[in-house]
């Protein structure tokens, strides 16, 4: 068998265009997942019982959901049950957000608990409000704890976005499937697709390592003052 380089070169622009959607969907879902994850983590720590209950249920339902099932159900099942019709793209972003936010809520909750209780006490003892203790004292330290695991979820969201091919979101995997079926050269095309995913993950990981270093996650160098 020969490797059809010409085919790859010819189809690469089309695949890179689809990669933009892959990046767009996964980055958007990740940003939303971080926001929802923060809200849910706050809910788990709230003094209000309904807030705690709600976020407990949310986290445990969506952490337990399989992405593939969630995607199919949101795309087909939801319409049947409620008449709500979502576009494939919306379903894609929604599913990735729900799943990752449930995991991130746990990451954030653990990171906040990981900050020494003495930090809360010291903040309270100098008269800071509960919010200021969180915002100025606890959150910056929790952020350092949370960065590596949070970064992993960004990488996961990127790779998981390939599942959206099943509902015809025209991202990298869907477009690659299409080209492979019409050209009968699956080997070259899937190797290329894999290479693109790998390259993005490589760049993301590099960026995350830089961020970790800047925040002093792995070393001892502290972050810039936050007062």
């Amino acid at each position: 068998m020969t490797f059809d380089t010409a085919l790859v070169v010819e189809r690469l622009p089309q695949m890179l265009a689809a990669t933009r959607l892959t990046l767009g969907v996964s980055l958007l879902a990740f940003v939303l997942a971080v926001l929802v994850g923060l809200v849910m983590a706050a809910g788990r720590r709230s003094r209000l019982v309904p807030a705690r209950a709600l976020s407990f249920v949310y986290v445990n339902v969506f952490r337990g959901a399989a992405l593939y099932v969630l995607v199919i159900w949101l795309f087909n099942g939801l319409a049947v049950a409620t008449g709500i019709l979502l576009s494939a793209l919306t379903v894609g972003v929604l599913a990735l957000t729900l799943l990752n936010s449930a995991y991130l809520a746990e990451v954030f909750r653990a990171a906040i608990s990981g900050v020494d209780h003495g930090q809360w006490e010291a903040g309270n003892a100098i008269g800071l409000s509960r919010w200021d203790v969180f915002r100025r004292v606890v959150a910056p330290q929790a952020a350092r704890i949370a960065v590596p695991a949070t970064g992993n979820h960004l990488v996961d969201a990127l790779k998981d976005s390939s599942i959206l091919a099943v509902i015809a979101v025209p991202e990298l995997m869907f477009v690659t499937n299409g080209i492979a079926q019409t050209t009968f050269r699956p080997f070259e095309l899937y190797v290329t697709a894999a290479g693109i995913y790998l390259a993005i993950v490589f760049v993301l990981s590099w960026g995350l390592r830089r961020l970790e270093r800047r925040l002093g996650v792995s070393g001892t160098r502290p972050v810039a003052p936050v007062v």
Partner: protein
Amino acid sequence: MGPGEQAETVIDLRGIQKWFDDNHVLRGVDLTVTRGEHVCVFGPSGSGKSTLLRTINLLEEPQRGSVRILGVEYGPGVDGEVGRGRAPAKQLRQHVGMVFQQFNLFPHMTVLDNVAIALRRVRGVDRAEAEERAARQLRRVGLLQKVSAYPSQLSGGQQQRVAIARALVLDPDVMLFDEPTSALDPELVGEVLGAMRDLAETGMTMVVVTHEMGFAREIGDQNVFMDEGVIVEQGGREIYTDSREARTRDFIRAVL
């Protein structure tokens, strides 16, 4: 203080009771501290010294008892009757500074920011003035040269002195110390006790939980021996040489 002049009461605790679940940790403690007084609290491990100190600034909420600071009630009252009439803890902390055994400095902030943050966020002082006032407190504990260091770059003794400056910057009416030297290597104890001695000499009102009996004998105007959640004996410096209670004598003999 001249004759007939009444010293102002800074702390007035009445009938303090505290339970952790079934564990009755404070069983009715009364304590009055007047302005400028230096109170030393000692006693065996688990006797409730830290819990008592922490109720003074409401890091622990007593279930029963009156916590009056400068005449204002912050506690639930002796029979739990105060209810909604009590003042908020945040107000109390404007008057009471606290130094912890484990320092509890904010590791992500410089020494200067550790001290300045309360002025900025609690008092709303602008940055330039907050930093100047923070620097003044750091000079007082001999650490002006460390303003831009991070806590992890300091020795334990230096960290504890920063913690003292952090508590002093709000100009509290009383300073609480919970075994401020017990987490330190022996050779670093002296510098922290030195800073506390200087503070005592300025007339600062202080309540110190300590196992440093030598230091307690030196500064303690009122000395309190606790055991099993009650004050067994309290008095002037004579408590260290001829205490009335056998339990006090046994404890002092054991630690000296």
